[in-house]
């Protein structure tokens, strides 16, 4: 974290001098493990530092998730934010959670506040939305100019992307399902998880590449 702390010193001095805000955040990863941190932002929402970065053992229930996420809260924390792959309703209830099916049907933000009290705020966000928000808050670290729009793309178990731009100075993250864009018209292409042929996720995601490697190695 020292590296990021030093990097943030490149921000303008008046930004540093302004008040900071602290949030406890948790990332629900594909491995079943949760990583939490105390993220400090400066008053204009730029990343300042992340303290107490800890990864859990594999977690299997909503109560375990909330217990781990809200443990050892430091003074000054304003709220608890979750980054969870899938679909949520009103930044609260998980509808689809491919990395954590145990969360489906649960109002994660409501349950969190029931545990820690309503003086805090809590919200659940899609993992690509949080990545876009994080890159925006870390433009200095990423080398992206203040107002430049950007595309963030994950190439992992699946393929997802968000387009982020500023409208009247506010970050706007456009919703999309780019993993299911058709990028090939060969009938011999492998099938995507949704069984369609020619989707980019069926060709260029991690599992798709692994399958291609296995197939090629049979012939070479």
């Amino acid at each position, binding site marked *: 974290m020292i590296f990021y702390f030093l990097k943030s010193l490149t921000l303008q001095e008046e930004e540093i001098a302004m008040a900071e805000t602290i949030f406890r955040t948790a990332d629900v990863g594909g491995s079943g493990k949760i990583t939490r941190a105390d993220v400090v932002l400066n008053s204009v929402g730029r990343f300042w530092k992340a303290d107490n970065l800890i990864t859990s053992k594999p977690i299997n229930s909503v109560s375990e998730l909330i217990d781990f996420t809200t443990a050892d809260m430091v003074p000054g924390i304003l709220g608890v934010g979750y980054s969870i792959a899938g679909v949520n309703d009103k930044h609260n209830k998980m509808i689809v959670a491919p990395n954590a099916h145990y969360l489906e049907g649960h109002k994660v933000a409501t349950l969190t506040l029931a545990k820690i009290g309503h003086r805090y705020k809590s919200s659940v966000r899609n993992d690509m939305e949080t990545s876009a928000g994080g890159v925006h808050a870390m433009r200095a670290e990423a080398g992206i100019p203040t107002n430049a729009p950007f595309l963030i793309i994950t190439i992992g178990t699946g393929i997802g992307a968000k387009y982020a731009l500023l409208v009247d100075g506010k970050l706007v993250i456009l919703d999309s399902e780019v993993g299911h864009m058709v990028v*090939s018209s060969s009938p011999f292409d492998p099938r995507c998880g949704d069984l369609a042929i020619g989707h980019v996720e069926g060709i260029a995601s991690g599992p798709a590449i692994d399958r291609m490697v296995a197939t090629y190695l049979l012939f070479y």
Partner: protein
Amino acid sequence: MPEGKVPGAYLGECYSAGEEWAVEIYNTVADALARLLNNIRCAYTFKYFVYKGTAGTDMFDRGIGELIRKKVRQMLVNPKWADRSNLKFIETPGPNNLDALVGAAYLLAADLGLL
């Protein structure tokens, strides 16, 4: 494939060693990603293409970005959009999904009207 190797990692090593089968797979993947990039770029303007994910990061470390650039140049309505000054491949900052942790804080701060 050597025992205990992850297919993606083995692919990367063989690609860097110039093995024909691995180059073919990289070309297939680069072609798919170039088409994706072309499609999105046709709708939205951006210079900064930020990537993350284990599979993607490994391939970008091994230079798939320049393969994608070469291919997307032939697809874009304006080939200049593929110039290095107009299309920059950037790895997302930070380990441990730091971007997601920071973004969860940023979006909550925005919801609270603090930004």
